[in-house]
C-alpha cells in the first residue's frame, strides 16, 4: 500500500502547477499532464483551485502601482491603523465588476493574522426597515441611523472611523483635534473634527453628504489630486462614479433641517414627484405605494409626513390631488 499523500505535499505540487499554468498563459498548454495529475487524489483539484485563487487575488497588487515597494509600505503603514490615502489604488480590472480598491481614508487595520481576532474591535450597528436608531459613541459623538442602514464603527487611538455600509446616517461629532472622525461611504471619505452632517449611501445611487454645522473634508478614493473638497454648513457634496470629482452645492438652512427630518421619523418633500416620494417611503415600510397610471407618479407633492405611514401619506395626497387611495395588504394604489 502506498503512503497517502500529505496535504502539504499536495499544496506544494498545486502551487507548482498554478505557477506553470501562469507561465504557459493557459491551462490548455499544459493540459494532458495537468489532467493526469488532477485525476489522482481528490484533494489535488482543490489545492490547485486554491493556488489559482491566490493568483487571482495577488493580481490585485497592481492596485498599489508600478513603484510599489513592499519594504517601504511596511515601514510606513505596517504598524499603523490607518494607511494614508496616498496609497490609492487604480481601478481593478476584472470581468465581473469594476471597483476602485485602495488603501486610504483611514481604514482601521491591525496587521496581525491570527484568525479574525484583529477585527474584533469593530462594532456593527444596523437598523431594520422603518427603524431609526440613535447610537451614542464612546467619544461623546452620536450617530443616528436611518431606516435599513448599517454602519461599522471602529475607534483607535489615532482615528475614529465609521464605515457606512448601507443606508443613511447623521453624525454629530464631538471635537477631538487629535483624533479625526472619518466616515467612509463606498469610495467617498468624509473627514471631520467636530461637526454635524448627514451621509446617504443608497444602492445604485450617488453618495450624498449634507453638512448642518461646522465643516468636513470630502475625499474620493481613486482620484489623486485636487479631489478633496471642503464642505461647510448648509452645503451638500455629491460624489458619484459618473462625475470626475466631488460636486458641491449650497442648500438653504431650512431645507437642510427639513431633509434631516427623518431623524424625527418624518419625511419632507418640496415639489417632489410622487414616484420619488413613493421610493422614499419604500425605504421605511414594506407597504408599497403604486400608481394606476404612471402619469400620476409625475405629479408633485409638498409637505412633511410620517415616514412609517405610507397609507396616511397616500390619503392626504389623494385629497389634495383629487385621487382615490385604495389600500391592499401590502400596497396602496393611487388612482384617478
Amino acid at each position, binding site marked *: 500500500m502506498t503512503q497517502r499523500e500529505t496535504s502539504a505535499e499536495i499544496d506544494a505540487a498545486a502551487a507548482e502547477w498554478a505557477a506553470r499554468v501562469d507561465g504557459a498563459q493557459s491551462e490548455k498548454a499544459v493540459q494532458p499532464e495537468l489532467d493526469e495529475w488532477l485525476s489522482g487524489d481528490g484533494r489535488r483539484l482543490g489545492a490547485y483551485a486554491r493556488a489559482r485563487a*491566490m493568483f487571482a487575488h495577488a493580481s490585485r497588487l*497592481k492596485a498599489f502601482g508600478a513603484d510599489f515597494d513592499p519594504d517601504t509600505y511596511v515601514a510606513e*503603514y505596517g504598524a499603523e491603523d490607518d*494607511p494614508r490615502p496616498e496609497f490609492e489604488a487604480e481601478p481593478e480590472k476584472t*470581468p465581473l465588476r469594476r471597483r476602485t480598491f485602495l488603501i486610504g481614508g483611514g*481604514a482601521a487595520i491591525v496587521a496581525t493574522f491570527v484568525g*479574525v481576532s484583529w477585527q474584533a474591535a469593530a462594532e456593527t450597528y444596523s437598523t431594520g426597515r422603518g427603524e431609526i436608531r440613535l447610537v451614542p459613541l464612546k467619544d461623546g459623538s452620536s450617530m443616528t441611523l436611518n431606516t435599513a442602514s448599517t454602519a461599522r464603527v471602529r475607534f483607535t487611538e489615532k482615528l475614529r472611523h465609521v464605515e457606512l455600509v448601507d443606508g443613511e446616517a447623521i453624525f454629530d461629532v464631538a471635537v477631538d483635534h487629535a483624533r479625526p472622525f472619518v466616515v467612509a461611504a463606498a469610495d467617498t471619505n468624509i473627514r471631520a473634527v467636530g461637526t454635524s452632517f448627514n451621509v446617504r449611501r443608497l444602492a445604485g445611487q450617488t453618495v450624498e453628504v449634507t453638512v448642518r454645522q461646522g465643516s468636513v473634508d470630502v475625499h474620493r478614493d481613486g482620484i489623486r489630486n485636487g479631489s478633496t473638497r471642503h464642505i461647510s454648513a448648509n452645503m451638500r457634496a455629491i460624489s458619484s462614479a459618473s462625475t470626475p470629482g466631488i460636486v458641491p452645492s449650497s442648500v438653504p438652512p431650512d431645507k437642510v433641517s427639513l431633509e434631516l427630518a427623518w431623524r424625527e421619523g418624518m419625511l419632507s418633500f418640496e415639489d417632489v414627484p410622487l414616484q420619488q416620494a413613493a421610493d422614499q417611503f419604500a425605504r421605511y415600510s414594506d407597504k408599497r405605494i403604486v400608481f394606476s397610471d404612471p402619469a400620476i407618479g409625475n405629479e408633485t407633492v409638498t409637505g412633511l409626513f410620517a415616514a412609517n405611514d405610507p397609507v396616511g401619506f397616500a390619503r392626504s395626497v389623494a385629497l389634495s390631488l383629487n385621487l382615490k387611495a385604495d389600500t391592499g395588504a401590502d400596497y396602496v394604489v393611487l388612482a384617478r
Partner: protein
Amino acid sequence: MRGVSDQRALWLARHILPLEPALRAFLMRMRLPQDLDVDDVVQEAYSKLAAMESVDDIQNPRTYAFSIARTIVLMHIRRSKVVSIRAVDDIETYPVAADDPSPEQQASDRQQLHLLGLAVAELPDPSRKAFQLRMIDELSHKEIAARMGITENAVQKNIAKSIGLLLKKLGRGGNISAGASMKAQQRQNEEPDDTARDERRN
C-alpha cells in the same frame, strides 16, 4: 478535462479565500477524527467548489462553504471503521449558523489589499522579486528570467514558492516563518476547543 477557469479562480479568491481562517477555526472546533486534518478538509472543500458546474446560484458563499466542509467531515467519519455515533451526532448538530462569520468579521476589500501588501513584504528574495515582476509589472516568465538572470524554470519555482507562502499566511491566518506559524496554529487550536467544551457543558 479538468481544471479551474479564470472566472472560478476569481470567484474563489473573492468569496472563499477571505473566509478561510474562519473555516479552519470552525473545523478545529469540530474535533476531527485522528486521521483527518483541517488541511485535508479544506482541500476537499475547494475541490467541490472547483468541480461545480456553476456557482451562480450560491447566494451565501459562507454558509455554503461551511456546510460543504461539514458534509466532508461526516462522510469521512461514516466511512471510517470505528464509527462513533456520538461523533456523527455532534457534527450533524453542530450549528453552521453560529460559526458563520458575520460580514463584519471579514476583512473588507481594502483591508484585504492592505494585508496582501504586508504579506508580500514578508516573502523572501528572490521569490519576492520574481513575484512582484510578475504580478505588478506583469512581465512574462521569460522576461523575468532575463531581468533577473535566472532560468525560466527558476522563475516558475520562485513564483510557486511565493504563492505557497501567501496561502499559508493569508489562508491560514499564520505567519510566514514556520515557527510563528506553529504558534498561531496552536493558539487557534486552544481557543476554539475551550469554546467547544463550554458549549457542550451548557
